[in-house]
């Protein structure tokens, strides 16, 4: 498919930009595999065998991840303004350098946890915040006719990164230890992100692919005005979007956080069998980001979230009455699909209601606080 409008054939291929952004999201999303590092890092810093670790060691170590999330959220808050000023190539390059450097420096932080907070947490978190906002903001402008699908793809990439890194990091931690794992992964993140960032470009103002005109539904769901973050925060609709996302996250996170014990409690299976439900939830969480994002382009964002909520009403109401493990997987998978769907669709919802220019920043604020 051609990405260039008929009047300007010098535009880059937007699908190459989308693939590059997806690769960057895979690298950035690796931070969500933090739980794989938790015990080995705590064990290294406190000189306690992994089997004997308790809250006294795990809690301070896990603060690293909280520091990442805070740094990510704060950076993404003003990252949109920097992106508008410097452009996605410069911003993503900076993101790759900072994230990679943060993880590389973490390799030399032991045994000082404060240094780990500063390197992996703050430097790395700033890098992720810059990169995350760039991918969403850039892709929304390049794909005005597929906002849902493309933001779903970007968010799915973030989730996919955690899945891949979880496997790679677990193997590396076992074979080369904590320090070398941070070092190798940090170099890989830096190289990958800086390389793919070089194809990033901002879409021209008002860009539309050749031959595309918005459908009546698309026009009916899209704001005719561009809002900045401060302006959006003064509108009741921003708080309604935040509430929608918060409710969807609350519902999905409730099930995800107790998937294994809940399955054991309801169906009497052992922990090993219950782990199957955890895997099923992870897979459908990822699929939901793409599926609902794609569907929202056809039925509109308001009806997508209406559907997400109604489907989950049925799934949550049925869950407690199920005593068969195989049957329990069905509503669990549906809830996970809807949970991922909320993340995949909300950036496009924000772009529809506040305009694409600052949608990335506006969504990240709703997304960040909606998760809390």
């Amino acid at each position, binding site marked *: 498919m051609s990405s260039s409008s008929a009047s300007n054939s010098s535009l880059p291929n937007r699908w190459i930009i989308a693939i590059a952004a997806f690769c960057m999201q895979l690298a950035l999303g690796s931070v969500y595999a933090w739980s794989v590092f938790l015990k080995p890092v705590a064990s290294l810093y406190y000189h306690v065998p992994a089997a004997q670790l308790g809250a006294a060691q795990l809690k301070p170590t896990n603060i690293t991840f909280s520091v990442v999330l805070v740094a990510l959220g704060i950076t993404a808050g003003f990252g949109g303004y920097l992106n508008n000023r410097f452009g996605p190539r410069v911003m993503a390059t900076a993101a790759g350098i900072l994230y990679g450097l943060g993880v590389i420096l973490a390799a030399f932080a032991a045994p000082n946890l404060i240094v780990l907070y500063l390197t992996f947490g703050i430097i790395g978190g700033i890098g992720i915040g810059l990169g995350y906002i760039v991918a969403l903001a850039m892709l929304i402008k390049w794909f005005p006719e597929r906002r849902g699908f493309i933001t779903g793809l970007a968010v799915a990439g973030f989730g996919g990164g955690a899945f891949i890194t979880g496997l790679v990091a677990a193997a590396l931690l076992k074979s080369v230890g904590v320090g070398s794992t941070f070092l190798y992964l940090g170099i890989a993140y830096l190289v990958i992100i800086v390389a793919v960032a070089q194809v990033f470009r901002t879409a021209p103002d008002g860009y539309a692919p050749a031959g595309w005109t918005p459908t009546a539904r698309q026009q009916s769901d899209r*704001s005719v005005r561009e809002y900045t973050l401060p302006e959006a925060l003064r509108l009741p*609709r921003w708080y309604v979007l935040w509430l*929608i996302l918060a409710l969807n996250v609350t*519902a999905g*996170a409730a099930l995800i956080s107790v998937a294994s014990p809940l399955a054991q*409690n309801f169906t009497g299976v052992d922990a090993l069998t219950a782990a199957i439900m955890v895997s099923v939830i992870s897979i459908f969480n990822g699929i939901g980001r793409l599926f609902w994002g794609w569907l929202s382009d056809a039925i509109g964002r*308001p009806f997508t979230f209406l559907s997400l909520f109604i489907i989950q009403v049925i799934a*949550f109401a049925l869950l*407690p009455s199920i005593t068969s493990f195989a049957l329990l997987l069905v509503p669990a998978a549906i809830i996970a699909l809807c949970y991922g769907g909320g993340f995949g669709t909300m950036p496009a919802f924000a772009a529809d209601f506040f305009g694409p220019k600052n949608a990335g920043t506006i969504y990240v604020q709703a997304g960040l606080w909606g998760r809390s």
Partner: protein
Amino acid sequence: MGPILITSFGAGKSIDYATPLYIIAVLMLVSAALPLVARALARRRGDIIEVTAGTGQ
């Protein structure tokens, strides 16, 4: 909120998962109209204009 809610019922080691699941179902039911409320708010302000197919707009 979700992880806290789901573990907030029951006594001792016996956690009651059913009650919070029903609470979530009710919460989602009463909130189902929120996406349409958001759209109505945007339309009321004039940011989103109703367009019907075939109007050429």
